[in-house]
């Protein structure tokens, strides 16, 4: 807990946390609560980019704004589901922080790691701090053997082909210097998790300093198969694309 207070130092930085949402009416409330719990001495804003969720996510965000303040929670919605990359770009337009954090809304990314991202960045002056699930203090819960196998196989293949310099390529829990995010995102064209890979590989190629912090990832949509044959083909195509164009 002392860490969370000592990280401010001489200059006080502001952090913009962009959370794309689609049908996350309960999770977004919990995530906002947890963020406020774990970033007590930090100047931050949360930017919720909701893609027209039919379950009323935006109504919940408005209630949260009443509770926490409209200056702390920004609702910047879009009319329909338009994809992750454009959601970040959209959220970036309204971000007033020095740093931007991107994270998922489904509670697989726990806000309790936010202080460690911030601390790592302040210690190393890194341009990007990325969360990694695959190191000793990190981990995943909710994956069966098959899922772990494909994850590991995909990772080894990507490491061999791309030499990316990070251990977790498809992770999407990251802190960026705002200018770095703007620079990298403008050159990325992929979709889905290949987009996350493209971001980190392009950043690495551009010479930005990237540091990692361990995170734990609790997959609560376990059972919903996110890895069919078409996913694997898409992944391989993404790898070849990154191999040839970065």
């Amino acid at each position, binding site marked *: 807990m002392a860490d969370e207070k000592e990280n401010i130092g001489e200059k006080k930085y502001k952090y913009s946390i962009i959370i794309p949402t689609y049908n996350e009416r309960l999770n977004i409330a919990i995530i906002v609560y947890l963020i406020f719990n774990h970033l007590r001495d930090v100047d931050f804003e949360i930017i919720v980019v909701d893609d027209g969720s039919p379950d009323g996510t935006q109504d919940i965000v408005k209630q949260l704004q009443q509770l926490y303040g409209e200056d702390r929670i920004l609702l910047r919605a879009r009319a329909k589901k338009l994809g992750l990359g454009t959601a970040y770009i959209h959220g970036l337009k309204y971000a007033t922080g020095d740093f931007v954090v991107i994270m998922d809304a489904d509670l697989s990314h726990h806000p309790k790691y936010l202080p460690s991202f911030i601390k790592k960045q302040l210690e190393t002056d890194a341009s990007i701090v990325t969360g990694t699930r695959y190191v000793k203090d990190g981990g995943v819960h909710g994956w069966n053997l098959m899922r772990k196998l494909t994850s590991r196989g995909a990772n080894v293949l990507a490491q061999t082909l791309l030499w990316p310099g990070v251990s977790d390529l498809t992770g999407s829990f990251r802190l960026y210097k705002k200018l770095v995010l703007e620079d990298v995102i403008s050159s990325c064209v992929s979709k889905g998790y290949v987009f996350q890979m493209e971001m980190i590989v392009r950043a690495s190629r551009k010479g930005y300093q990237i540091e990692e912090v361990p995170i734990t990832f*609790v997959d609560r949509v376990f059972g919903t198969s996110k890895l069919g044959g078409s996913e694997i083909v898409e992944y391989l195509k993404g790898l070849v694309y990154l191999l040839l164009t970065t």
Partner: protein
Amino acid sequence: MKHVVKILSLLVAVSAFWIALLQAAIIPRSHTWLLPIYFVVSLGCYGLLMVGIGLMQFPTCPREAVLLQHDITEAKDFLSANGVDVRSD
């Protein structure tokens, strides 16, 4: 320099070395011809080994799921007491 150019340069350098070995005949030619196959097979075995080791050492965190449940309960209690609707649908 693009990454793929780096890899191709590496392959060209290794191929040049292999051709030089063939011509110099320091190692018997019959062995030299097979070197690329040895190399590819070794690479494949190394890859499988890394996958296997990674799988065995795959970090898991069952405790985190429990902690998350506590956090969710705590959050729901606080939020519903402060005017935020916490129903799932």
